[in-house]
Protein backbone atom coordinates (compact mmCIF):
# COMPACT_ATOMS: atom_id res chain seq x y z
CA UNK A 1 0.00 0.00 0.00
CA UNK A 2 1.17 3.49 -0.77
CA UNK A 3 0.02 6.14 1.65
CA UNK A 4 0.59 9.80 0.85
CA UNK A 5 -0.14 12.21 3.68
CA UNK A 6 -0.32 15.97 3.27
CA UNK A 7 2.75 16.21 1.01
CA UNK A 8 4.17 19.63 0.23
CA UNK A 9 6.90 20.11 -2.36
CA UNK A 10 8.47 23.33 -3.64
CA UNK A 11 11.07 24.19 -6.24
CA UNK A 12 12.51 27.39 -4.80
CA UNK A 13 9.57 29.70 -4.17
CA UNK A 14 7.28 27.73 -6.47
CA UNK A 15 5.09 25.35 -4.48
CA UNK A 16 4.21 22.45 -6.77
CA UNK A 17 2.47 20.14 -4.31
CA UNK A 18 0.29 21.85 -1.75
CA UNK A 19 -0.87 19.11 0.54
CA UNK A 20 -1.52 15.94 -1.42
CA UNK A 21 -3.33 13.03 0.23
CA UNK A 22 -3.76 9.72 -1.53
CA UNK A 23 -3.91 6.06 -0.62
CA UNK A 24 -3.26 3.37 -3.19
CA UNK A 25 -4.18 -0.22 -2.36
CA UNK A 26 -2.33 -3.27 -3.67
CA UNK A 27 -3.60 -4.29 -7.09
CA UNK A 28 -5.23 -0.96 -7.73
CA UNK A 29 -4.72 1.17 -10.84
CA UNK A 30 -4.93 4.89 -10.15
CA UNK A 31 -4.83 7.39 -12.97
CA UNK A 32 -3.75 10.94 -12.26
CA UNK A 33 -5.16 13.50 -14.66
CA UNK A 34 -4.94 17.26 -14.80
CA UNK A 35 -3.35 20.14 -16.68
CA UNK A 36 0.41 20.27 -17.29
CA UNK A 37 2.27 21.73 -14.35
CA UNK A 38 -0.33 20.69 -11.81
CA UNK A 39 2.20 18.54 -9.96
CA UNK A 40 1.29 15.01 -11.10
CA UNK A 41 4.74 14.06 -12.37
CA UNK A 42 6.45 15.60 -9.38
CA UNK A 43 4.37 13.42 -7.09
CA UNK A 44 5.64 10.30 -8.85
CA UNK A 45 9.25 11.40 -8.36
CA UNK A 46 8.53 12.03 -4.67
CA UNK A 47 7.02 8.57 -4.19
CA UNK A 48 10.29 6.82 -5.08
CA UNK A 49 12.52 9.42 -3.45
CA UNK A 50 13.93 10.82 -6.68
CA UNK A 51 12.74 14.16 -5.29
CA UNK A 52 12.72 15.36 -1.70
CA UNK A 53 9.63 16.84 -0.04
CA UNK A 54 9.30 19.79 2.31
CA UNK A 55 6.65 18.36 4.60
CA UNK A 56 4.20 15.53 4.91
CA UNK A 57 4.85 11.81 4.71
CA UNK A 58 4.82 9.10 2.10
CA UNK A 59 4.72 5.45 3.10
CA UNK A 60 5.38 2.55 0.77
CA UNK A 61 4.48 -0.73 2.50
CA UNK A 62 4.93 1.04 5.84
CA UNK A 63 8.39 2.28 4.91
CA UNK A 64 8.61 6.05 5.27
CA UNK A 65 10.08 7.14 1.95
CA UNK A 66 11.81 10.32 3.06
CA UNK A 67 12.94 9.15 6.50
CA UNK A 68 16.70 9.47 7.05
CA UNK A 69 16.90 5.80 7.95
CA UNK A 70 15.38 4.70 4.64
CA UNK A 71 17.80 3.53 1.97
CA UNK A 72 16.40 5.02 -1.24
CA UNK A 73 18.19 2.50 -3.45
CA UNK A 74 16.49 -0.35 -1.60
CA UNK A 75 13.14 1.38 -1.66
CA UNK A 76 13.29 2.00 -5.40
CA UNK A 77 13.51 -1.72 -6.04
CA UNK A 78 9.86 -1.92 -4.98
CA UNK A 79 8.86 0.87 -7.33
CA UNK A 80 9.32 0.71 -11.08
CA UNK A 81 9.13 4.03 -12.89
CA UNK A 82 8.66 4.79 -16.59
CA UNK A 83 8.94 8.31 -17.96
CA UNK A 84 7.42 10.25 -20.80
CA UNK A 85 10.76 11.02 -22.45
CA UNK A 86 12.59 8.09 -24.00
CA UNK A 87 15.43 7.14 -21.69
CA UNK A 88 16.69 3.74 -22.74
CA UNK A 89 20.43 3.48 -22.20
CA UNK A 90 21.66 4.24 -25.74
CA UNK A 91 24.92 2.30 -25.47
CA UNK A 92 23.23 -0.97 -24.54
CA UNK A 93 21.10 -3.43 -26.52
CA UNK A 94 17.50 -4.04 -25.47
CA UNK A 95 18.62 -7.16 -23.65
CA UNK A 96 21.42 -5.34 -21.83
CA UNK A 97 19.11 -2.43 -21.00
CA UNK A 98 16.76 -4.79 -19.21
CA UNK A 99 19.49 -6.94 -17.68
CA UNK A 100 21.66 -4.14 -16.28
CA UNK A 101 19.79 -3.40 -13.05
CA UNK A 102 19.15 -7.07 -12.14
CA UNK A 103 22.87 -7.71 -12.63
CA UNK A 104 24.06 -4.69 -10.62
CA UNK A 105 21.35 -4.42 -8.00
CA UNK A 106 20.23 -8.02 -7.56
CA UNK A 107 23.70 -9.44 -8.27
CA UNK A 108 22.37 -11.81 -10.90
CA UNK A 109 24.83 -13.54 -13.22
CA UNK A 110 24.95 -12.52 -16.84
CA UNK A 111 23.20 -15.72 -17.87
CA UNK A 112 20.42 -15.15 -15.33
CA UNK A 113 19.96 -11.53 -16.26
CA UNK A 114 19.96 -12.42 -19.97
CA UNK A 115 17.25 -14.97 -19.41
CA UNK A 116 15.25 -12.53 -17.32
CA UNK A 117 15.64 -9.88 -20.02
CA UNK A 118 14.40 -12.26 -22.73
CA UNK A 119 11.42 -13.11 -20.58
CA UNK A 120 10.48 -9.49 -19.90
CA UNK A 121 11.07 -8.38 -23.48
CA UNK A 122 8.86 -11.20 -24.74
CA UNK A 123 6.19 -10.10 -22.31
CA UNK A 124 6.11 -6.61 -23.87
CA UNK A 125 6.28 -8.03 -27.40
CA UNK A 126 9.91 -7.30 -28.17
CA UNK A 127 11.20 -10.86 -28.37
CA UNK A 128 12.60 -10.16 -31.84
CA UNK A 129 14.47 -7.03 -30.72
CA UNK A 130 16.75 -8.51 -28.07
CA UNK A 131 19.93 -7.34 -29.75
CA UNK A 132 18.65 -4.06 -31.13
CA UNK A 133 19.95 -0.76 -29.80
CA UNK A 134 17.44 1.90 -28.70
CA UNK A 135 18.31 4.03 -31.75
CA UNK A 136 17.02 1.18 -33.90
CA UNK A 137 13.65 1.04 -32.13
CA UNK A 138 10.52 3.07 -32.70
CA UNK A 139 9.16 5.28 -29.94
CA UNK A 140 6.53 2.73 -28.98
CA UNK A 141 9.14 -0.02 -28.84
CA UNK A 142 11.40 2.16 -26.69
CA UNK A 143 8.60 2.75 -24.22
CA UNK A 144 7.82 -0.97 -24.07
CA UNK A 145 11.53 -1.55 -23.52
CA UNK A 146 11.40 0.92 -20.61
CA UNK A 147 8.45 -0.98 -19.15
CA UNK A 148 10.28 -4.30 -19.52
CA UNK A 149 13.33 -2.78 -17.84
CA UNK A 150 11.23 -1.68 -14.89
CA UNK A 151 9.45 -5.07 -14.67
CA UNK A 152 12.74 -6.98 -14.61
CA UNK A 153 13.30 -5.66 -11.09
CA UNK A 154 10.02 -7.32 -10.06
CA UNK A 155 8.61 -4.14 -8.56
CA UNK A 156 5.49 -4.19 -6.41
CA UNK A 157 4.33 -0.91 -7.87
CA UNK A 158 4.66 0.75 -11.23
CA UNK A 159 4.79 4.53 -11.57
CA UNK A 160 3.98 5.71 -15.09
CA UNK A 161 4.61 9.30 -16.08
CA UNK A 162 2.67 10.08 -19.28
CA UNK A 163 4.28 7.13 -21.01
CA UNK A 164 2.38 7.69 -24.24
CA UNK A 165 2.63 11.48 -24.47
CA UNK A 166 5.77 11.58 -26.60
CA UNK A 167 4.50 8.94 -29.03
CA UNK A 168 3.03 9.27 -32.50
CA UNK A 169 -0.69 8.48 -32.29
CA UNK A 170 -0.37 5.19 -34.15
CA UNK A 171 2.15 3.93 -31.57
CA UNK A 172 0.07 4.73 -28.50
CA UNK A 173 -2.06 1.60 -28.80
CA UNK A 174 0.78 -0.93 -28.48
CA UNK A 175 1.99 0.68 -25.25
CA UNK A 176 -1.50 0.90 -23.75
CA UNK A 177 -2.08 -2.76 -24.65
CA UNK A 178 1.00 -3.65 -22.62
CA UNK A 179 -0.27 -1.64 -19.66
CA UNK A 180 -3.70 -3.27 -19.95
CA UNK A 181 -2.05 -6.68 -19.81
CA UNK A 182 -0.11 -5.61 -16.72
CA UNK A 183 -3.22 -4.33 -14.99
CA UNK A 184 -4.98 -7.62 -15.73
CA UNK A 185 -2.11 -9.45 -14.08
CA UNK A 186 -2.76 -7.48 -10.90
CA UNK A 187 0.07 -4.95 -11.00
CA UNK A 188 -0.45 -1.91 -8.82
CA UNK A 189 -0.03 1.19 -10.95
CA UNK A 190 -0.07 4.93 -10.51
CA UNK A 191 -0.33 6.38 -13.97
CA UNK A 192 -0.16 10.03 -14.93
CA UNK A 193 -2.04 10.10 -18.22
CA UNK A 194 -3.83 12.23 -20.76
CA UNK A 195 -5.50 9.18 -22.28
CA UNK A 196 -9.01 9.48 -20.86
CA UNK A 197 -10.25 6.34 -22.57
CA UNK A 198 -7.39 4.40 -20.99
CA UNK A 199 -8.06 5.95 -17.58
CA UNK A 200 -11.74 5.15 -17.87
CA UNK A 201 -11.23 1.60 -18.99
CA UNK A 202 -8.17 0.45 -17.00
CA UNK A 203 -8.17 2.78 -14.03
CA UNK A 204 -9.94 1.72 -10.86
CA UNK A 205 -9.93 5.27 -9.62
CA UNK A 206 -9.10 8.59 -11.22
CA UNK A 207 -7.67 11.55 -9.35
CA UNK A 208 -7.95 15.03 -10.85
CA UNK A 209 -5.01 17.28 -9.98
CA UNK A 210 -5.50 21.01 -9.83
CA UNK A 211 -3.24 23.64 -8.33
CA UNK A 212 -1.02 21.17 -6.50
CA UNK A 213 -3.77 19.23 -4.76
CA UNK A 214 -6.10 16.39 -5.63
CA UNK A 215 -9.19 18.36 -6.47
CA UNK A 216 -11.49 15.42 -7.06
CA UNK A 217 -11.08 11.68 -6.83
CA UNK A 218 -13.44 8.84 -7.52
CA UNK A 219 -14.13 5.62 -9.40
CA UNK A 220 -12.76 6.03 -12.92
CA UNK A 221 -16.02 5.86 -14.86
CA UNK A 222 -17.96 8.05 -12.46
CA UNK A 223 -15.36 10.77 -12.38
CA UNK A 224 -14.79 10.91 -16.11
CA UNK A 225 -18.43 10.54 -17.17
CA UNK A 226 -19.93 12.53 -14.38
CA UNK A 227 -17.51 14.88 -12.64
CA UNK A 228 -18.85 16.79 -9.66
CA UNK A 229 -16.43 19.71 -9.39
CA UNK A 230 -16.57 22.62 -11.79
CA UNK A 231 -12.78 22.55 -12.42
CA UNK A 232 -12.92 18.88 -13.29
CA UNK A 233 -15.78 19.52 -15.70
CA UNK A 234 -13.82 22.31 -17.35
CA UNK A 235 -10.71 20.17 -17.72
CA UNK A 236 -12.56 17.17 -19.11
CA UNK A 237 -14.53 19.45 -21.41
CA UNK A 238 -11.31 20.76 -22.92
CA UNK A 239 -9.86 17.29 -23.39
CA UNK A 240 -12.88 15.76 -25.10
Amino acid at each position, binding site marked *: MIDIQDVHKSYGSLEVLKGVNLTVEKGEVICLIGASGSGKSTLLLCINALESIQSGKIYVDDIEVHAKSTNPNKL*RQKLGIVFQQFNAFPHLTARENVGL*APRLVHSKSRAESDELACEQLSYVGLADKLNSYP*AQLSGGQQQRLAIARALAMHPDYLLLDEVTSALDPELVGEVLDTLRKLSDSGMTMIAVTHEMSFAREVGDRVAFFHNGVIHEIGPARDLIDNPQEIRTKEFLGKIK
Partner: protein
Amino acid sequence: MTIDPNFSLKDLIFMAQGAAITFALTIISGAIGTALGFLIGWARTSSSILVVALLGAFIDVIRSVPLIIQFILFNSFMAIADYPLDPFTSGIITLSVYISGYVAEVVKAGIESVPRITRLAARGLGLTYLQDFFYVVVPIGVRTVFPSWTGLMLGVMKDTSLIAVLGATPPELLRASQIVITRVQEPLLILIGAGCFYFFMCAVITKINMRVERSWNITGSTFK
Protein backbone atom coordinates in the same frame (compact mmCIF):
# COMPACT_ATOMS: atom_id res chain seq x y z
CA MET B 1 88.30 17.20 -35.19
CA THR B 2 86.32 18.03 -38.30
CA ILE B 3 82.57 18.24 -38.46
CA ASP B 4 80.90 16.08 -41.05
CA PRO B 5 78.34 18.32 -42.76
CA ASN B 6 76.45 15.46 -44.41
CA PHE B 7 73.19 13.98 -43.21
CA SER B 8 73.94 10.42 -42.22
CA LEU B 9 72.08 7.36 -41.04
CA LYS B 10 73.23 8.26 -37.53
CA ASP B 11 71.27 11.51 -37.76
CA LEU B 12 68.17 9.66 -38.85
CA ILE B 13 68.52 7.29 -35.92
CA PHE B 14 69.08 10.26 -33.62
CA MET B 15 65.83 11.82 -34.87
CA ALA B 16 63.98 8.50 -34.64
CA GLN B 17 65.12 8.23 -31.04
CA GLY B 18 63.75 11.75 -30.51
CA ALA B 19 60.48 10.67 -32.04
CA ALA B 20 60.32 7.71 -29.67
CA ILE B 21 60.84 10.04 -26.72
CA THR B 22 58.13 12.37 -28.03
CA PHE B 23 55.76 9.44 -28.38
CA ALA B 24 56.57 8.12 -24.91
CA LEU B 25 56.12 11.58 -23.36
CA THR B 26 52.75 11.86 -25.09
CA ILE B 27 51.52 8.47 -23.92
CA ILE B 28 52.76 8.81 -20.33
CA SER B 29 51.63 12.37 -19.65
CA GLY B 30 48.49 11.78 -21.74
CA ALA B 31 47.58 8.81 -19.55
CA ILE B 32 48.34 10.52 -16.24
CA GLY B 33 46.72 13.77 -17.38
CA THR B 34 43.60 11.95 -18.52
CA ALA B 35 43.27 10.04 -15.25
CA LEU B 36 43.78 13.21 -13.22
CA GLY B 37 41.51 15.24 -15.51
CA PHE B 38 38.80 12.60 -15.19
CA LEU B 39 38.79 12.99 -11.41
CA ILE B 40 38.87 16.79 -11.61
CA GLY B 41 36.11 16.91 -14.24
CA TRP B 42 33.98 14.53 -12.19
CA ALA B 43 34.52 16.61 -9.04
CA ARG B 44 33.53 19.70 -11.03
CA THR B 45 30.02 18.26 -11.37
CA SER B 46 29.69 17.91 -7.59
CA SER B 47 27.19 19.95 -5.67
CA SER B 48 29.84 21.54 -3.44
CA ILE B 49 30.22 25.18 -4.45
CA LEU B 50 33.66 25.36 -2.83
CA VAL B 51 35.02 22.35 -4.75
CA VAL B 52 33.59 23.63 -8.03
CA ALA B 53 35.05 27.13 -7.49
CA LEU B 54 38.51 25.91 -6.47
CA LEU B 55 38.82 23.48 -9.35
CA GLY B 56 37.46 26.10 -11.73
CA ALA B 57 40.20 28.50 -10.65
CA PHE B 58 42.83 25.76 -11.06
CA ILE B 59 41.64 25.04 -14.59
CA ASP B 60 41.58 28.73 -15.48
CA VAL B 61 45.20 29.17 -14.39
CA ILE B 62 46.39 26.02 -16.13
CA ARG B 63 44.72 26.98 -19.37
CA SER B 64 45.77 30.65 -19.31
CA VAL B 65 49.49 30.47 -18.50
CA PRO B 66 51.70 29.39 -21.44
CA LEU B 67 52.94 25.83 -21.02
CA ILE B 68 56.58 26.86 -21.47
CA ILE B 69 56.30 29.16 -18.44
CA GLN B 70 54.72 26.36 -16.42
CA PHE B 71 57.64 24.07 -17.32
CA ILE B 72 60.21 26.61 -16.15
CA LEU B 73 58.32 27.73 -13.05
CA PHE B 74 57.66 24.25 -11.75
CA ASN B 75 61.19 23.09 -12.45
CA SER B 76 62.73 26.16 -10.78
CA PHE B 77 60.36 25.94 -7.84
CA MET B 78 61.34 22.34 -7.18
CA ALA B 79 65.01 23.28 -7.38
CA ILE B 80 64.54 26.18 -4.96
CA ALA B 81 62.60 23.91 -2.62
CA ASP B 82 65.64 21.63 -2.60
CA TYR B 83 63.87 18.83 -4.46
CA PRO B 84 65.57 19.10 -7.83
CA LEU B 85 63.94 16.74 -10.32
CA ASP B 86 65.45 15.38 -13.47
CA PRO B 87 64.09 17.19 -16.53
CA PHE B 88 61.94 14.29 -17.71
CA THR B 89 60.25 13.79 -14.34
CA SER B 90 59.67 17.48 -13.93
CA GLY B 91 58.46 17.73 -17.53
CA ILE B 92 56.06 14.82 -17.25
CA ILE B 93 54.56 16.19 -14.03
CA THR B 94 54.04 19.65 -15.53
CA LEU B 95 52.66 18.26 -18.76
CA SER B 96 50.29 15.85 -16.96
CA VAL B 97 48.86 18.60 -14.78
CA TYR B 98 48.54 20.86 -17.82
CA ILE B 99 46.68 18.17 -19.76
CA SER B 100 44.43 17.43 -16.80
CA GLY B 101 43.07 20.98 -16.92
CA TYR B 102 41.90 20.48 -20.49
CA VAL B 103 40.70 16.91 -19.98
CA ALA B 104 38.68 18.03 -16.95
CA GLU B 105 36.60 20.35 -19.14
CA VAL B 106 36.03 17.60 -21.70
CA VAL B 107 35.01 15.17 -18.95
CA LYS B 108 32.63 17.69 -17.44
CA ALA B 109 31.04 18.24 -20.86
CA GLY B 110 30.72 14.47 -21.27
CA ILE B 111 29.00 14.03 -17.92
CA GLU B 112 26.65 16.91 -18.59
CA SER B 113 25.79 15.53 -22.01
CA VAL B 114 23.89 12.66 -20.37
CA PRO B 115 20.22 13.69 -20.07
CA ARG B 116 18.87 14.07 -16.54
CA ILE B 117 16.00 11.76 -17.39
CA THR B 118 18.41 8.94 -18.30
CA ARG B 119 20.08 9.26 -14.91
CA LEU B 120 16.71 9.41 -13.15
CA ALA B 121 15.74 6.23 -14.97
CA ALA B 122 18.92 4.51 -13.80
CA ARG B 123 18.46 5.64 -10.20
CA GLY B 124 14.78 4.72 -10.44
CA LEU B 125 15.82 1.13 -11.14
CA GLY B 126 17.67 1.08 -7.84
CA LEU B 127 21.18 1.73 -9.14
CA THR B 128 23.38 3.57 -6.66
CA TYR B 129 25.05 6.86 -7.55
CA LEU B 130 28.30 5.06 -8.43
CA GLN B 131 26.58 2.33 -10.45
CA ASP B 132 24.69 4.99 -12.40
CA PHE B 133 27.94 6.90 -12.92
CA PHE B 134 30.11 4.05 -14.11
CA TYR B 135 27.59 1.94 -16.03
CA VAL B 136 25.42 4.65 -17.55
CA VAL B 137 26.99 8.11 -17.42
CA VAL B 138 30.59 7.22 -18.28
CA PRO B 139 29.86 4.96 -21.27
CA ILE B 140 27.45 7.50 -22.77
CA GLY B 141 29.65 10.52 -21.99
CA VAL B 142 32.82 8.90 -23.34
CA ARG B 143 31.18 8.27 -26.69
CA THR B 144 30.07 11.88 -26.86
CA VAL B 145 33.40 13.56 -26.08
CA PHE B 146 35.84 11.00 -27.45
CA PRO B 147 36.62 13.05 -30.60
CA SER B 148 37.43 16.14 -28.48
CA TRP B 149 39.70 14.04 -26.31
CA THR B 150 41.50 12.67 -29.38
CA GLY B 151 42.09 16.24 -30.53
CA LEU B 152 43.56 17.08 -27.13
CA MET B 153 46.00 14.17 -27.31
CA LEU B 154 47.21 15.23 -30.76
CA GLY B 155 47.86 18.68 -29.29
CA VAL B 156 49.80 17.10 -26.44
CA MET B 157 52.10 15.35 -28.88
CA LYS B 158 53.19 18.72 -30.24
CA ASP B 159 53.31 20.34 -26.79
CA THR B 160 55.92 17.81 -25.66
CA SER B 161 58.50 19.70 -27.75
CA LEU B 162 58.44 22.49 -25.14
CA ILE B 163 60.14 20.16 -22.65
CA ALA B 164 63.34 21.19 -24.45
CA VAL B 165 63.51 24.31 -22.27
CA LEU B 166 64.41 22.00 -19.38
CA GLY B 167 67.35 20.62 -21.35
CA ALA B 168 66.19 17.04 -21.17
CA THR B 169 68.57 14.56 -22.79
CA PRO B 170 68.35 12.58 -24.92
CA PRO B 171 66.28 15.22 -26.70
CA GLU B 172 62.80 14.72 -28.06
CA LEU B 173 62.04 15.01 -31.76
CA LEU B 174 62.02 18.77 -32.33
CA ARG B 175 65.13 19.46 -30.25
CA ALA B 176 66.90 16.53 -31.92
CA SER B 177 66.03 17.98 -35.31
CA GLN B 178 67.40 21.38 -34.31
CA ILE B 179 70.65 19.79 -33.21
CA VAL B 180 71.00 18.06 -36.55
CA ILE B 181 70.16 21.29 -38.38
CA THR B 182 72.93 23.20 -36.62
CA ARG B 183 75.46 20.81 -38.05
CA VAL B 184 74.05 19.85 -41.41
CA GLN B 185 72.67 23.31 -42.32
CA GLU B 186 69.72 21.83 -44.21
CA PRO B 187 66.82 23.20 -42.14
CA LEU B 188 64.12 22.72 -44.75
CA LEU B 189 64.86 19.10 -45.45
CA ILE B 190 65.25 18.16 -41.81
CA LEU B 191 62.13 19.99 -40.67
CA ILE B 192 60.17 18.24 -43.40
CA GLY B 193 61.55 15.00 -42.02
CA ALA B 194 60.60 15.96 -38.46
CA GLY B 195 57.13 16.94 -39.69
CA CYS B 196 56.78 13.51 -41.27
CA PHE B 197 57.67 11.86 -37.96
CA TYR B 198 55.03 13.95 -36.15
CA PHE B 199 52.47 13.23 -38.84
CA PHE B 200 53.11 9.51 -38.69
CA MET B 201 52.81 9.39 -34.89
CA CYS B 202 49.62 11.45 -34.90
CA ALA B 203 48.26 9.19 -37.63
CA VAL B 204 48.80 6.18 -35.39
CA ILE B 205 46.78 7.77 -32.57
CA THR B 206 44.05 8.96 -34.95
CA LYS B 207 43.79 5.53 -36.56
CA ILE B 208 43.49 3.72 -33.24
CA ASN B 209 40.89 6.17 -31.97
CA MET B 210 38.90 5.99 -35.20
CA ARG B 211 38.85 2.24 -34.84
CA VAL B 212 37.54 2.52 -31.29
CA GLU B 213 34.84 4.93 -32.46
CA ARG B 214 33.88 2.69 -35.34
CA SER B 215 33.44 -0.25 -32.99
CA TRP B 216 30.80 1.81 -31.18
CA ASN B 217 29.10 2.70 -34.45
CA ILE B 218 29.02 -0.83 -35.76
CA THR B 219 27.22 -1.97 -32.66
CA GLY B 220 24.52 0.54 -33.52
CA SER B 221 25.10 2.85 -30.61
CA THR B 222 25.07 6.00 -32.71
CA PHE B 223 22.83 8.31 -30.81
CA LYS B 224 19.84 9.97 -32.37
